[in-house]
């Protein structure tokens, strides 16, 4: 692939573009979906393409192509230069010149390369079987998926940068519907790893079933102001929204509730929040980001105080500091943007059982709907639909649903009183978080 990448750099130079970066990728993936113990869908994919970013006096143009033959390369270079001619100049936009060596991580496991379709199918079947066997009230497993991917990225630029790495990953997922007296509740679970041996299909199926079944019989509850326990799935959804507000991009553009709060207290004293793109067990682990900058650990919140933000090259230059290795790309068809990698929620933990038994009245929230649409990342106000289980007299009692949880993000962070001992990775946003105990939340019901 570097041959093609070099050809693009030469074509760009021949057209007079001086500062040019080429990002190429080549990947394969497989996905199996099963339903009622039959294969429903088997997908095999190949992906290959490249993107060219041209900087001309601070104006940026980007173009991409899947056509790696000469005509396609010539076309993509021409487009990138044309696009740069339309963009407005920005003194902080410049070709990245990453300092430092890539992080010493190898998110690739040879064992996954020999996986067969038969093995993939049997994992998916085992996940579904475990969910169906877990509880007689499981009506159906609407989605059971096994998927894996194996890809290589290449970055090179006119500044002499030349880096590549290979990574792979596999996961299984189940989405369960449970039914009782005509009421349907849902639950899901994931397991992920870099080899089939890492996946525990039984655990995945059982957890998805348990999460659905525990909500059966749920009713509305009266409106109240009580402590809530957000389980890791729900906590991760909130941190997912918060993390976009922790990017320098959002802060610099005035689109973040954290704007102007660096060094200030923004959360309960025990909360630690880090972004760590070099964490070996993290789903988003990589040696460098989409601009070639080494991945690293970046403290975001420590002792409840906002310690830092996430930067790519552009936002770093604007703030007069280095990129934190958070210039990530969705694919070769897109520009890098500032995004979190692996988010790690830490701090002193309390056994979850003690948290529940020490709560006289509250709600264990196991499901939140609308966190992304119902939360305003600028103002931090949110109102989301939740389901969960009432905590009464130190015990989990009745399931509840069709109630809302409302507040504002900073208020909620500030009211974090305890962290559970149940930290786990929640994929989607690649977040490692325990349950969070938050005081005085507005639960809206009847």
């Amino acid at each position, binding site marked *: 692939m570097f041959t093609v990448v070099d050809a693009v750099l030469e074509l760009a130079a021949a057209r007079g573009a001086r500062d040019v970066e080429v990002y190429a990728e080549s990947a394969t993936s497989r996905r199996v979906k099963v339903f009622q113990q039959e294969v429903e869908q*088997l997908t*095999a994919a*190949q992906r290959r393409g490249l993107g060219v970013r041209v900087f001309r006096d601070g104006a*940026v143009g980007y173009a991409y192509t899947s*056509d790696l033959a000469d005509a396609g390369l010539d076309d993509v270079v021409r487009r990138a230069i044309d696009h740069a001619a*339309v963009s407005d100049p920005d003194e902080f936009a410049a070709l990245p010149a990453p300092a430092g060596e890539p992080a010493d991580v190898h998110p690739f496991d040879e064992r996954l390369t020999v996986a067969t379709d038969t093995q993939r199918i049997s994992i998916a079947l085992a996940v579904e079987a475990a969910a169906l066997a877990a509880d007689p009230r499981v009506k159906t497993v609407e989605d059971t998926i096994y998927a894996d991917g194996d890809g290589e990225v290449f970055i090179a630029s006119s500044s002499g940068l030349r880096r590549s790495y290979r990574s792979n990953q596999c996961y299984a997922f189940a989405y369960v519907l449970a039914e009782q007296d005509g009421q349907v509740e849902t639950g899901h679970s994931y397991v992920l790893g870099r080899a089939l041996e890492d996946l525990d299909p039984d655990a995945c199926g059982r957890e998805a079933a348990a999460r659905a079944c525990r909500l059966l019989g749920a009713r509305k509850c009266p409106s109240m102001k009580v402590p809530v326990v957000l389980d890791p799935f729900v906590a991760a959804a909130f941190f997912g929204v918060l993390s976009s507000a922790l990017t320098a991009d959002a802060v610099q553009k005035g689109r973040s509730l954290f704007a102007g709060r660096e060094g200030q207290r923004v959360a309960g004293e025990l909360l630690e929040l880090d972004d760590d793109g070099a964490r070996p067990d993290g789903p988003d682990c990589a040696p460098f980001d989409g601009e070639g900058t080494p991945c690293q650990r970046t403290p975001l919140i420590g002792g409840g105080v906002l310690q830092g933000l996430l930067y790519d090259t552009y936002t770093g230059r604007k703030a007069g500091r280095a990129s934190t290795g958070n210039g990530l790309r969705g694919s070769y068809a897109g520009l890098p943007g500032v995004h979190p990698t692996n988010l790690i929620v830490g701090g002193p933990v309390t056994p979850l059982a003690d948290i529940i038994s020490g709560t006289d009245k509250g709600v264990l929230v196991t499901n939140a709907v609308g966190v992304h649409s119902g939360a*305003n990342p600028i103002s931090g106000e949110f*109102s989301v639909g939740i389901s969960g289980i009432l905590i009464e007299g130190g015990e989990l009692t009745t399931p509840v649903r069709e109630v809302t949880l*409302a507040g504002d993000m900073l208020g909620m962070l500030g009211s974090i009183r305890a962290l559970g001992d149940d930290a786990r990775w929640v994929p989607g946003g690649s977040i490692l978080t325990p349950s969070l105990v938050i005081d005085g939340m507005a639960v*809206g019901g009847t």
Partner: protein
Amino acid sequence: MDVRTTHRDLLQAIIARTLRRGGDFAEVYVEDREGLGLRLEDGRIEATSGGREAGAAVRLLSGERTYYAFSDGVDEAALTAAADAVAAAMAGGAPAGLSVVMLGDVRSAPDKHPVKVPPESVAIARKAELLRAGDAAARSAGAEIAQAMVGYGDSRRRVLIANSLGECVYDDRTSVRFSVQVVARRGEIIQTGMETLGGSAGFELVDEAAARDVAVAAAAKALTMLDSKPAPVGAMPVVLANGFGGVLFHEACGHGLEADAVAKGASIYTGKIGEVVAAPIVNAYDDGALTNGWGSQAFDDEGVPTQKTVLIEEGRLIGYLYDRLRARQMGAAPTGNGRRQSFRHVPIPRMTTTYIAPGEASADDVIASTPHGFYAKSLAGGQVEPASGNFVFGVAEGYLIEHGRLTTPLRGATLVGNGIDILLRIDMIADDLEMKTGVCGKDGQGAPVGTGQATLRISEMTVGGTA
């Protein structure tokens, strides 16, 4: 490269190759997609981006099983590799009886969604002017406008779909979208407003006047909401405004009418054809053929012509939205709703433009006859569980209704409820049908969709506010 010239003999050979170990339906999907995106923020046009991707997918159906392979590249090698990948999945199978296909003439319908000015014929600098016009209009709307983000995008997708039924369809699709998001600030209070314009049409859709209108509407929302108070909590009558209010029907009901959820029993509408699922004044449709509609195409992504499908008639459930696979499974005719985001995605049943038909009342009457309630002028999006029908929606712009009049703007409101409950509780529908554009996400695939409705009232619904 032109997908249209992909050789018929090659397509036939690939279909035969795909079926060589069995299966009862094979399809080749070839796509050449080009796109351009411009974005303005902070008064500056940011990195302009665009490009071209071409790829092919081969699909094989065997009973209820789907085998799918795709790759970047549309040459014979890519198509052959994809055909072999799906055929390999049928290990041990025998050749299908229908492995010899004779493709019929290529069908296309270039006049269905006319493009007067192809976007690629317009200089990028001209498109940039529209962004500046939108920015200027948004910023001149008031001193409290803190930020404006203006976006323009155009795309052209040329697809060729051939299958073992002998059908061969070519569809050339152009779409344009323009959007403005505005941030207004007063001290610590920050509010946003968003407005969009889009269609399956050419550059004629947008000009300076249109750009200004979109920007002014977005700015007005943000400015209005600066005066808002926290929304109350509780059950009350809710009036949904025309246009964006249709998002609620899309999310809370529409997804449950997509045949994949129905076939799996994962929809509250499973087995309810002919039953009362809404108030008798409710008629609802999905129309993928709506001329130049943002959610429209001449053919769906399986080569089936799009159509207007009756979903609910006088409160009774009439039909579901099918792709080929679910139509086969459920013994129904495909409705032209088999859509895919690109060659990298398996087609699934999707809405196109979905709407509740207008009624007789005027919008003013609907509000005037509501002594106390909540008026949702624009929704921020939401989520629904098709299995239960439970949904949650954020309200981007809402007002209190007091004594039949709109009074205080309210912020932070969400609407919580159940799809069937709210349709049964619609007790007034006005005559002001309006369509809005959106991008719907499902199974990891984005699809342009239209949503619409006239102003209507739901007799009771739970409003979750922060007050």
